[in-house]
């Protein structure tokens, strides 16, 4: 076990900072996990969903007669039978200029992407439900469709939303300084266009919803493997027009991966509970892999046109980026492109910035946040240009970066733009030169350039790529924790947010135990149920460590005070003379004078029915804290990759991958490392392998893992990790998020490495992922591949 240094706020942290193995693991390793479809639901009916076969069409008629008469079919619902819930699913992040288009739970008159729900079949089991789907006849009137932002923006392109005058969803410009003048006066200006393709979240467990209306309590109980149980509950309460307490939303203890798509709100989540109530019978819907490809939100597709102006030494003077963002058929939220806009400047001092977003509707499944959430694309735009500046001036890429980094004494550093949370983009802390030094201490540049030169002579092409980033994490509005002393003398920590493998049961037991100063064995953590704690936001945007962490810390500290007050009263001493040891509170130096936690709970919580207690004795020992961050806290990192490119086959081999990361204080190094390693694999997928291809008119061309290449153990090398610790001054634990930092720099870093390897060919790497076809096209100047 290792312990991080400089926790700062804690004089004695017995648990925080320790690389503890996880409490969750034993059940998961022995087949005892509690994933949604593993729950013993008994006689729940099963639903299957008929989805559009057309990227854009008018629905003229839906005939469900034959399907209804099939043995075992219970009910079929289309928009016609669902009038009361045919309401808008509102986007998460909006903008006053948004060309807003309503997104319904199920298609009514038009379908706008392949995969959009048209009908729900409820049957005795999924096999029969799927049989019934085959018997539903839909009469479509096909309409023109667009399968990319390029197609969507063409003159005379079909409109995704009939009646709308444009496919542009929003056009926003953010500026700092005077970029126009700076571009005119900069000694050097270079420009390039970069394209990043769509990719998916691909949690191995798909989405899933089950629901039962409890006639006894008149409560709708919904099981949903969402990342954000309270968010879904609030959405449902609004759409169903009921009080929030009439819905209990439970995210199962185990969720098979999230990565962003499970933090969004979908039509299926509205349909299934409503239908369960309508038919007075419990129903579940389990998304299959094809459905996941065509109906779970995706991300990444953006086209950036970047210009940078700089002086003779490579100091950045101005950055201008105009980018197209593929919003998909509906706007689920503008969080991704607004994050892209503000991630662009990264760790560099840039006096003049122009960041311009053109978000487009396309006839493809909507996009939303996915591990990295708009940042990998921004980092491609920025970091590829840093390498081009180096090439232009004939200096090392690392040196160009060094000359432009924000220095450790410049924090808090105001970039001059606005972040996705609505607050000014102001970095709270960091040490970017140390990140760069961390890489340079592991790679001898001179030696590498020598090897590279020698290798080229023997027909082997090596390249080095760097990419740095700054990542806003830990955003608001708040997240909560409830800490309670139970009748058994144990401490129960209830969290609103649900985990998808991050190890909340372990790490928040560590935080609670230290806040209380009690044995960690006494602490139990549960999560993801709206009946545990009334409000919450959910797991997304690498926000939980920096929001739940402080909430547990604060609530735990308050509960400790209460426990000691009760003990002081019982032991007739001062609070200052007491200590929590094992399962009891003892008087310092007189361990025989003690009262157990169970006794404290008995007196303060259970009480004696109807009897008064002393005025100063705290009762009901439960504390709830909602930590409300004032702004995002900014993690940062660097990736360095060394690749070898086979110029005959286009295959890229990653020889070394180095990742430096700074997420402030580390609560559990084992878990943080796990997040970085997992993110790194996702980044490699985005850099080289994963591509959700669509035809020009929006037909998905990769809808199985035979067409969509997820990286296996053969493709993902073990990276060399190092940590820099710049505690955040904005929360009591000094922590920042770590869920996405492994992913964010990889596409840019690998692309830089490949272009560096192929410099003798003058190859320009402008499109990701770097499939063999794209690499060969770049080497031999072949025309751009069309789908």
């Amino acid at each position: 076990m290792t312990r991080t240094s400089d926790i700062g706020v804690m004089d004695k942290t017995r648990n925080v900072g320790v690389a503890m193995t996880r409490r969750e693991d034993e059940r998961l390793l022995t087949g005892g996990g509690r994933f949604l479809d593993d729950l013993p639901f008994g006689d729940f009916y099963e639903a299957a969903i008929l989805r559009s076969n057309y990227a854009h069409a008018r629905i003229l008629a839906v005939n469900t007669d034959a399907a209804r008469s099939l043995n075992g079919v219970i009910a079929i619902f289309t928009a016609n039978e669902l009038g009361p819930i045919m309401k808008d699913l509102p986007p998460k992040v909006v903008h006053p200029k948004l060309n807003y288009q309503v997104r319904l739970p199920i298609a009514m008159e038009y379908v706008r992407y392949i995969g959009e729900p048209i009908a729900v079949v409820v049957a005795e089991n999924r096999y029969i439900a799927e049989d019934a789907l085959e018997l539903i006849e839909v009469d479509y009137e096909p309409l023109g469709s667009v399968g990319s932002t390029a197609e969507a923006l063409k003159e005379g392109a079909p409109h995704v939303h009939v009646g709308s005058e444009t496919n542009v969803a929003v056009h926003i410009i953010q500026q700092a300084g005077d970029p126009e003048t700076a571009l005119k006066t900069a000694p050097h200006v270079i420009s390039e266009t970069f394209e990043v393709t769509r990719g998916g979240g691909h949690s191995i467990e798909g989405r899933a919803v089950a629901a039962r209306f409890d006639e006894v309590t008149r409560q709708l109980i919904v099981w949903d493997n969402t990342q954000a149980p309270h968010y879904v509950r609030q959405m449902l309460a609004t759409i169903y027009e009921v009080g929030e307490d009439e819905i209990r939303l439970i995210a199962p203890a185990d969720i098979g991966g999230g990565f962003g798509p499970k933090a969004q709100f979908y039509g299926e989540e509205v349909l299934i509970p409503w239908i369960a109530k309508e038919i007075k019978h419990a129903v579940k819907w389990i998304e299959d892999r094809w459905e996941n490809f065509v109906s779970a939100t995706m991300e990444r597709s953006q086209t950036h046109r970047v210009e940078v102006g700089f002086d003779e030494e490579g100091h950045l003077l101005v950055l201008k980026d105009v980018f197209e963002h593929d919003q998909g058929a509906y706007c689920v939220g503008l969080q991704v492109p607004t994050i892209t806009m503000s991630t662009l400047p990264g760790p560099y001092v840039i006096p003049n910035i122009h960041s311009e977003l053109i978000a487009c509707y396309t006839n493809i499944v909507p996009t939303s946040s996915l591990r990295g959430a708009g940042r990998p694309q921004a980092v491609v735009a920025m970091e590829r240009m840093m390498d081009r500046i180096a090439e232009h001036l004939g200096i090392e890429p690392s040196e160009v970066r060094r000359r432009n980094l924000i220095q450790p004494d410049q924090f808090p550093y105001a970039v001059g733009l606005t972040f996705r949370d609505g607050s000014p983009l102001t970095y709270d802390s960091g040490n970017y030169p140390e990140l760069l030094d961390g890489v340079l201490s592991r790679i001898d540049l001179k030696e590498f350039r020598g090897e590279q030169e020698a290798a080229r002579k023997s027909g082997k092409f090596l390249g080095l790529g760097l990419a740095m980033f700054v990542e806003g994490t830990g955003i608001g509005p708040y997240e909560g924790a409830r800490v309670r002393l139970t009748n058994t003398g144990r401490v129960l920590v209830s969290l609103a947010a649900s985990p998808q493998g991050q190890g909340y049961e372990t790490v928040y037991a560590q935080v609670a135990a230290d806040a209380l100063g009690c044995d960690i064995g006494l602490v139990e953590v549960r999560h993801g149920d709206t009946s545990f704690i009334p409000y919450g936001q959910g797991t997304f945007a690498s926000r939980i460590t920096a929001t739940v962490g402080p909430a547990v810390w604060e609530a735990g500290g308050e509960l400790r005070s209460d426990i000691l007050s009760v003990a002081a009263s019982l032991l007739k001493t001062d609070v200052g003379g007491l200590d929590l040891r094992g399962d009891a509170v003892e008087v310092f130096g007189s361990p025989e004078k003690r009262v157990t936690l169970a006794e404290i709970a008995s007196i303060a919580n259970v009480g004696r029915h109807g009897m008064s207690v002393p005025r100063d004795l705290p009762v009901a020992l439960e504390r709830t804290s909602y930590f409300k961050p004032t702004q995002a806290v900014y993690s940062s990192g660097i990736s360095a990759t060394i690749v070898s490119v086979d110029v005959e086959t286009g295959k890229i081999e990653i020889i070394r991958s180095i990742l430096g990361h700074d997420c402030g204080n580390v609560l559990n190094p084992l878990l943080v490392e796990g997040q970085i390693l997992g993110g790194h694999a996702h980044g490699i997928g985005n850099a080289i392998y994963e591509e959700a291809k669509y035809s020009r008119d929006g037909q998905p061309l990769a809808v199985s893992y035979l067409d969509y290449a997820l990286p296996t153990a053969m493709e993902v090398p073990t990276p060399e990790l190092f940590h820099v610790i710049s505690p955040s001054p904005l929360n009591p634990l000094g922590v920042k998020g770590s869920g996405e930092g492994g992913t964010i720099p990889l596409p840019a870093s690998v692309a830089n490495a490949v272009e560096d390897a192929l410099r003798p060919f003058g190859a320009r790497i402008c499109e990701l992922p770097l499939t063999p076809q794209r690499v060969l096209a770049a080497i031999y100047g072949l025309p751009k591949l069309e789908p």
Partner: protein
Amino acid sequence: MSEAIDVDPIESKIWITLTINGSKNSYFVEQRLTLADFLRKEVGLVGTHLGCEHGSCGACTIIMDDKAVRSCLLLAVQADGASLETVEGLARDGAMTPLQEAFRAHHALQCGYCTSGILLSLVARLREGPIETEAEARESLSGNICRCTGYTGMVSALLSLSNSKSGDEEKQ
């Protein structure tokens, strides 16, 4: 297409007899029921998970007659007479196997959804011989997809196993 569903699923049921984690039983199953759904829905062994249902991700891997198989690509009736091993059968008397322990020690799982299939793939592989190098470890994991971990913890877990005597128990 209506012919296909004229087959009454009840009429088409047949009896199969098979051994699951050492215990032999007979079941009356629909012919079209997949082996994965059979284990999960009929037998109640829900530790075997479905990730793609087209044989790519490996989450549903179990051992059938000593070979690792994708239970999503087999029908339950094809397992008639076979001996199956699932994740529920690995730990004995509440004690996890050295492979399971190594997974925990090396943080080789996060969400844990794909883990059952990976464990069973590895148990079958380890019976063929030890995994001693990183290349062998990666090769042995290459039939399974994990989206959370980046595989590093699994590789470390496997190599730790070959470095300790307890690894022999996995090889039986």
